[in-house]
């Protein structure tokens, strides 16, 4: 079953194309993230789902019912969704309880029900004793919880979140990630989450839509995105990576500084002769002495350390295997190599993802 169906949505602002061609089907109870750098169109997409912006092209359907099309759009207040805003948008002149109760009041529920549900909700977000406070008296994290409670209490068809954690400090951000995911799991809400923070999206989402310059780059699970990035943009935006250009030359794949037999790669026959591979720095092992042999399909590539950076929890070595390449390899913090030293890198073709350039 499909909860929310977004079909070929596009949106222009004047001559600027904010969203080009966005299609996505979301199952009930799924947690989807829209991930991309600022200006990629993710917030515009979210506001189209909410109904604040009508689309220029395409349709949005909820439970099979048409919500948005270029000619007509159900207004936000008739969509039964709720949203958490970047600014929280907590109303400063209402108490915490009044903020949370607002959506229920609009639905004209009996006062008793409202009070009971507000109390329950405040307990869920751990604000039980703060119902009579005003938002200005709360910390950033508490305000965030008020926003969550206010949005969740109406049991929305879809919960939309627009970079809700970007105003919090790092520790709180981590805590709130789990809080949001916990609420999602508890109430089984279909959730669309907009963020530019890849680790946020990775930790929370069932599926991630990576967007860039108004287009969808890839839709996949966090695992899939990291380990099988479909485009150069995804490979570089999700985690760090080395891009290695290569030429297929008969039975070999030539990386200029070194080469690997073509039969070591899966599915290489589909690919053209000019290739681009993504190789994560963490996938490369570094050895300071000449290794005895290779295990599990690894290839040993000798190179000189050009640069090193120490991060405390790891070393990053930039290594030149010849041919003017520079490959970044991450090692555990105890492995110290000197700049200029000759080292060996273990490269596994299994970890090298061919990317459509």
């Amino acid at each position: 079953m499909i909860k929310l169906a977004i079909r070929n949505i596009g949106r222009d602002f004047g001559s600027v194309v904010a969203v080009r061609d966005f299609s996505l089907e979301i199952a009930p109870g799924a947690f989807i993230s829209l991930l991309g750098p600022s200006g990629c169109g993710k917030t515009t997409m979210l506001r189209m789902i909410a109904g604040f912006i009508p689309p220029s092209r395409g349709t949005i359907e909820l439970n099979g019912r048409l919500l948005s099309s270029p000619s007509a759009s159900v207004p936000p207040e008739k969509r039964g969704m709720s949203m958490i805003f970047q600014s929280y948008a907590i109303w400063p002149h209402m108490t915490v309880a009044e903020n949370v109760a607002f959506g229920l009041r609009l639905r004209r529920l009996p006062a008793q029900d409202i009070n009971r549900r507000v109390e329950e909700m405040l307990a869920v977000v751990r604000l039980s004793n703060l119902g009579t406070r005003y938002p200005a008296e709360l910390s950033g994290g508490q305000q965030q919880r008020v926003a969550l409670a206010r949005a969740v209490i109406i049991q929305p068809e879809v919960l939309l979140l627009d970079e809700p954690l970007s105003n919090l400090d790092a520790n709180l951000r981590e805590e709130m990630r789990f809080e949001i995911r916990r609420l999602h799991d508890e109430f089984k809400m279909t959730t669309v989450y907009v963020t530019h923070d890849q680790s946020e999206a990775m930790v929370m989402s069932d599926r991630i839509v990576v967007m860039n310059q108004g287009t969808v780059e890839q839709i996949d699970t966090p695992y899939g995105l990291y380990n099988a990035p479909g485009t150069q943009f995804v490979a570089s935006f999700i985690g760090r990576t080395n891009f290695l250009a290569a030429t297929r030359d008969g039975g070999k794949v030539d990386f200029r500084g070194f080469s690997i037999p073509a039969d070591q790669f899966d599915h290489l026959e589909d690919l053209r002769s000019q290739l681009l591979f993504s190789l994560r720095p963490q996938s490369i092992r570094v050895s300071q002495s000449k290794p005895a042999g290779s295990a599990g399909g690894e290839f040993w590539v000798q190179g000189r350390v050009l640069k090193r950076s120490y991060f405390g929890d790891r070393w990053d070595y930039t290594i030149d295997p010849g041919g003017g390449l520079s490959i970044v390899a991450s090692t555990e913090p105890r492995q110290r190599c000197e700049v200029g030293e000759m080292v060996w890198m273990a490269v596994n073709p299994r970890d090298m993802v061919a990317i459509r350039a």
Partner: protein
Amino acid sequence: MHPEVTLKSPWHRWNPTELLWVGLALVLILLVGNPLLRLAWISLETPSGGFTLGNYAEIGRHWRYLVGYRNSLALGFSVASLCLLIAVPIAWGVSRTNMPGKNLVQVLVLGTFVTPPFLGATSWILLAGPNAGWINRAYMGIFGADSGILNIYSFPGLVFVIAIYSFPYTFVFTRAALDLVSSEMEDAANCLGAGRVKATLAITLPLIRPALLGAWIITFLEAIAIIGSSIIIALPANINLVTLQLWQFFGYPLRVEMAAAYAMPLLLVTMGLFGFQQRILRGKGYVALTGKGGERRLIDLGAGRWLLLAYSGFIVTLSLVLPYLVLLQAAFAKGWARGLGWNNLTLANFQFLLFQHSTAKQAILNTFVYSSAAATLALGLAVSVAYIVARRLVPFGNVLSVLAFTPFVIPGLVLAIGFYAAYAPPPLALAGTAAIMVLAFMTRFLPIAYSNASAAIRGIHPEMEDAVMILGGSRLVAIRRVVAPLLKRSLLGAWLLVFIPASREVSSALFLYGPKTRTMSVLFFDLTEGGSFEQLAALGVILLLTVLVFVAIGLMCVGRDFMLRKASE
């Protein structure tokens, strides 16, 4: 595809917001556009309705008319420059140094700001009128001279009396700019070997040059458009000014077409200078004025701080202390020249105004009614326009914004002439009605209302309303439940900021009042002909009390900085 769903489009033809937009645009055009067009039109009209350039030609033929322009320009230059001399040291002292008594100085500058200039000018007649003025008598008494040294009825006297009530503008501009200059700017100069004086003169003052120039322009325009002080000082001194000449065109015989033509250069100069000022203030390159200030330390002046305090005290003594003293003395005196003493004390002046004078009570009532009505209407219009502009609910919102700001660049008396030209004749025939007074006040102070309303609305994050809508409330619910409560406080401040200047408005009132629509300030000028100084002073005290009561309400409800800060926006 889904026939069971009925869809409503927010961009449907003639939805309510678009109707509202058209309505507001019409109101703004009637209030702002039409009077200006009528003004231009009538200046090109013969009495019988034909086209002519004769009105303009007639200006060129009369030396007296040309002298009016010359004098007004000279007045503007002198006042604006004198304001800089008066205000910059005080502003620097308050903003950058450890001068003592800063709060008191600021309060007294605020006091100067809310003092109606025509009241100050009247007090200065009591202080520096030839021979009879208090200062002159003191001088003659001490030095045994035959005649006093000061004559307020002179060009320098006129310059002084206008400047001493205009310098708060310069103060506000300068202080706001100085508040943004970080100490690091001066530290950098110190490191390179510049002393404190050198750093202030070579770094700080040039940094705030745009603000100084802006203040100079504002006070220049204030001086060339001021009618009250002109009537009180320049008329007896026989100095013709643009303002006085316009006023005379409105006397007998009434020559609206000449007034319109004669006002055109004033209007153009004003608009031109405002445009220029906007360009300067927008000019890039003065990072200190746009960016965040770094650390700010106060400059230790040593013993010099007392000197600076004495200077500030001297200025506010001239603007506030002495004028209020002589005004109070005169208001409660049988004869102001007879000095202090129990036998000279009386309430007769107040009694005369409140119980005997034929129109005084009416005028006081009118002042309150017109000012409240103008403030309420202006604010209502301003909030509606500001809201739909800020939320981009309509296309071309900026046109509305520009229209709402336009009265700011129209001198009050020019606006009044335009209103007269547009709405005095049939079909509306509003001449002498309360309606034309209220509409003129409302239009005149619409920019104050608009800039405040717009700032207040911009302070409300649009997501506050989005949150209402996504939870199921319409925009009207969002306005009623969220926007209105959040605006309440700042709108009270804005209301007062319109009410206070409206309650002491002279320029448009003097041109538009009728027999039954006098306000307190009109009455004041009635009394300058034929009334006594004692009665004038008493009326002045009533006027001042009115203003002070409302300023006090503002300070209590909105906060200490409310007038000075807002005035600089």
